[in-house]
Structures are given as C-alpha cells and as structure tokens.
C-alpha cells in the first residue's frame, strides 16, 4: 500500500459491515417454515377440492368452504403458499437478473402482487364463509 491510499481507519473498521446483510437466515428459514406448513395444507386443499368441487361443482365448493376447517386451511394454504412463492421467486431473480435496476422493481412487483392475491383470496373466502 502506498502512502497516498493509506487510510487512518483501522483494519477492523474497514472490514466491519462488509459481510452479509445479516438477513439471509430469516429468508432461508421462512422458505422452509412455509414449506412445512404447505405439506399438510396443500394435501388437505387438493383432497378437499377433488372430493367437493370436482364432484359437487359450484354448490359443492360453497358447501366445502363454509366449513371452518376448510376455510382455515384454505387461508393458511394461501398465505403460506404466497410467502413461499415470494421467497422462491426472490432467489430465482437474484440468481438470474443481475441488473439491479431491473431486479428491484420486479421484486417489488412480485411482493405487491402476492399481497394483492392474499387480500383478494381472504376476502373471497370470508365472503363465501359468511355467506354474504
């Protein structure tokens, strides 16, 4: 190191804050926890769908989603699924889209879309459940 670029900062000071953003574990953890929640809820929703909707059509679907257990599992399936989706799409985008100015708006759009779908889904399930 020549004299011109020599800094007064200590090596420790220069190195601090240069590591990870310290939030990677949470992302990893949420992706797994949502996956664990999705194991029973996906199976429940898929089997319930086949038993009620594929057989009973519109009235079968309404009857199914008016049971508390089905409505609860459908909401849980929706929330865990969308949270898992945001985690997964974020990883994929971070791997393949290197241009930050493209990646950040896209990531925002994905998160916005997921929140919108969650609200729409819950309102619809609530409307069916309370039969309004």
């Amino acid at each position, binding site marked *: 190191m020549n004299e011109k670029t020599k800094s007064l900062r200590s090596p420790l000071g220069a190195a601090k804050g240069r590591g990870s953003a310290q939030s990677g574990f949470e992302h990893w953890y949420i992706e797994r926890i949502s996956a664990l929640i*999705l194991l029973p809820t996906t199976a429940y929703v898929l089997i319930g769908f*086949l038993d009620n909707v*594929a057989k009973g059509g*519109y009235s079968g*679907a309404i009857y199914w989603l008016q049971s508390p257990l089905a409505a609860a599992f459908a909401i849980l399936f*929706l929330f865990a699924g969308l949270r898992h989706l945001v985690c997964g799409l974020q990883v994929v985008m971070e791997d393949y889209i290197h241009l930050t100015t493209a990646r950040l708006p896209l990531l925002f759009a994905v998160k916005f879309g*997921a929140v919108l779908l969650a609200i729409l889904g819950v*309102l*619809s399930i609530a409307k069916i459940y309370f039969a309004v």
Partner: protein
Amino acid sequence: MSSPDAPKPRPRSPHLQIYKPQLSSVLSITHRASGVGLTLGAVVFVVWLVALAGGQDSYNTFLSYAHTIIGQIILFGLSCALIYHYCCGIRHLLWDAGYCLDIKDVYKTGYIMLAIVPCLIAFVWLKAYGVIP
C-alpha cells in the same frame, strides 16, 4: 495438442450446453422451474376463489374458460408442477434436516419420487373426471 513444454490447460468450469445432464441437476432445475410455474397456479387459485365468491354466474364464466382445451392444458400443467414441486420439496426438506445427503440416497429418493409423481398426477385427474369415485 499442447507440447510437453506448454503449461497444462487449466480446467474449465462446466457450461450447461456441454455438461452431461445428471438426475440430481435435472431434478433440481425442474424443481425451480416448477416453482416459478406455480406462480400462475397461485393466480389461478385466487381467480377461482374470486369467481366462486362472485356467485353462480361468475363461477360459470370461470368454468367456461377452464373447460377449453387451452384451459385444461394449463390446469394439467399446473397440477403436474404442484405435485412434482410438492414431492421434490419433501426431498429438499429432508436434506435440510440432514438426511439422505449422500449421492446414493440422492439418487434413490430421486427415483422413488419419479415413480410416485406420475401415479399421483394420474390419481388426481382420474378422480377429477370421476373415473375413481
């Protein structure tokens, strides 16, 4: 060919185009692709809920799209992606928990999954069409 005096060529990183596909890599990229595809699945699920909440008429409109050939192809693709991602995801969770990590188990669980997935897809669609009560 390089002469004995020339430096040995450096090993090059494998490019996807010339890299022999292996079960582990193919299943991994398919897991990712099916996950991305299931984004459409989430949209379709919510559209279905909204149509259902809108009453009989809006539900019939949804069905008129779902029952077209393109609609059935999309639904079939989504069901394949869902069942594949579900089964492959169980393997990923097993790995995260520290199980089945050596190559032998990776291949074994991979082949088990490849046997189960088509059966589940067939079961779902036979049930959906009422072939299985």
